[in-house]
């Protein structure tokens, strides 16, 4: 029979284990053709506890999404091979409900996001705190609706 102190430790460990399970590292795919931007985003997101994967163009992003399971995808719009908008449109056409956040400097960012079926969008330039906020909301909410 464990002592009172050992019992407290066991309870604490169990509570900790539950906490860890509840806060599973969520995965994010960062798709941007600018390697330095990708690296800066990846590092900041990893610091926030995200498991970060990267794609350097739209086609690679699409392939990775098809092959893996992501909680959320960050898609830059202006990318070679396929634009972020094209990737999102294709995902929706294939019935993929993965949550997508569009990153763009387009003036009509809201219309673009709604048109391609993104869950959320961020207009450039954006700050990291704004990005974390949008990611939290996008990864928690239902997929398929654009919100800033």
């Amino acid at each position, binding site marked *: 029979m464990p002592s009172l102190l050992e019992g407290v430790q066991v309870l604490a460990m169990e509570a900790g284990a539950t906490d860890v399970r509840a806060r599973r590292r969520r995965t994010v795919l960062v798709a941007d*053709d600018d390697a*330095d931007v990708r690296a800066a985003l990846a590092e900041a997101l990893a610091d926030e506890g995200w498991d970060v994967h990267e794609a350097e163009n739209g086609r690679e992003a699409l392939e990775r999404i098809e092959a893996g399971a992501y909680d959320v995808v960050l898609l830059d719009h202006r990318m*070679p091979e396929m634009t972020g908008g094209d990737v999102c449109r294709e995902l929706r056409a294939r019935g993929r409900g993965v949550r997508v956040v569009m990153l763009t*400097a387009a*003036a009509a960012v809201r219309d673009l996001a709604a048109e391609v079926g993104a869950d959320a969008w961020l207009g450039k*330039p954006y700050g*990291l705190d704004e990005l974390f906020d949008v990611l939290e909301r996008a990864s928690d909410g239902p997929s398929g609706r654009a919100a800033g």
Partner: protein
Amino acid sequence: MDGLAESAFEAHRRYVSTGRLVGDLLRESTLRAWERAHRLGADARLPKAEHLGLRETERLLGARRDVLAAAEPYLHLLSRAAGEDRHAAMLGDASGVVLRTLGDERTIYGPEPFPSAGALLDEGVAGANGIGTPLAEGDYVELVGPEHFIEGFHAFTCQGIPVHGPSGERAGVVSVSVRRTAAAARLRRILVCSAKGIEAELLRGRVEEDVRRVVAAAGFDEALVETLRQDLVQSAAAGRLRAESAARGVARDRLSESARLLALAERSIEAFRRQAAAWFRLASSEPAPTSDVALHELVDTLAELGRTEASTRLVDLHVDAPTAVYATADVGAITRALFGGLLRSLERAGAGGRVILEVRRAGDTRTVRGIAAAQGRAPVEAFRLALPGGDDGVPTGTR
């Protein structure tokens, strides 16, 4: 207190008791600031800054919305970089009035309230300080503790740097103040980068206004100009993102990684400035007097501006400019001609193709050629621009 602060403390003590400036106890820039403050009648015994009235402050904040909006992300970034240190990041207008202060709770709301919006920090009122002195010096300035002219500021080490608007006019000043001098040294480069970032944000505001002028002046398709605007904004956005990542790194003591990110941030901001300058020339339809134009640099910048467009069209774009080449020309007119040529070259090359922008000197003539090669096809000349030679340091006859 270190040697610098001890000397300044003694200089301040003597100034307050005798009214005399002891030059050899102060750094050169601090001495200049104290001399100005003395001449302008600032009171070294002041416990805190004087303030504008509430209504006047509100009017000022309304009038300077542009610089406030441009600076806000960078003030947050500076505050984040300061981390756990007691600190304040400040924005002042071009006359030394504080527009915004941001910092930790004790500094902003504590028993020794830090200057807030409306505080008058012009040297004539507040003496040497992190807002008024950079404005007076026109450059980066650091003031350690007692180097501040008024006693109320002695607890802080402040550093500030002026910020300029799109036409080079003084738009304001950004500063950061910390209790620990050691913390100040870590923030210097972030502060300098923040000033450049704020200037880039002010420039971005003007770029956004210029889309229609570029369409009208350069005759490009509106949709294309909008995508180019997006690419231009991307450089500014990348700069901000990298600067913010660097600030987070400083707060976490990852100093070498932060230095690398800051260098990247500065590179992005500099690229944005170059591209924005080219953009404004695209937007201008008015003839300018001819001058010596660095063709190799101009072609490089235009290639930078068109690189994402090339990449989305799946065209490989290169610049071949082995030497510095100067031409005598109207820089606005050749910017529009070259960019039009670049777009035609991309069109000719098509997906999977390749474009080389070639800059050459031949006798007294300078040429830029766009050579386009469609996939699997021989290269063709898509455009050629020939200009009279400028002063590129090569004697006539050998050019």
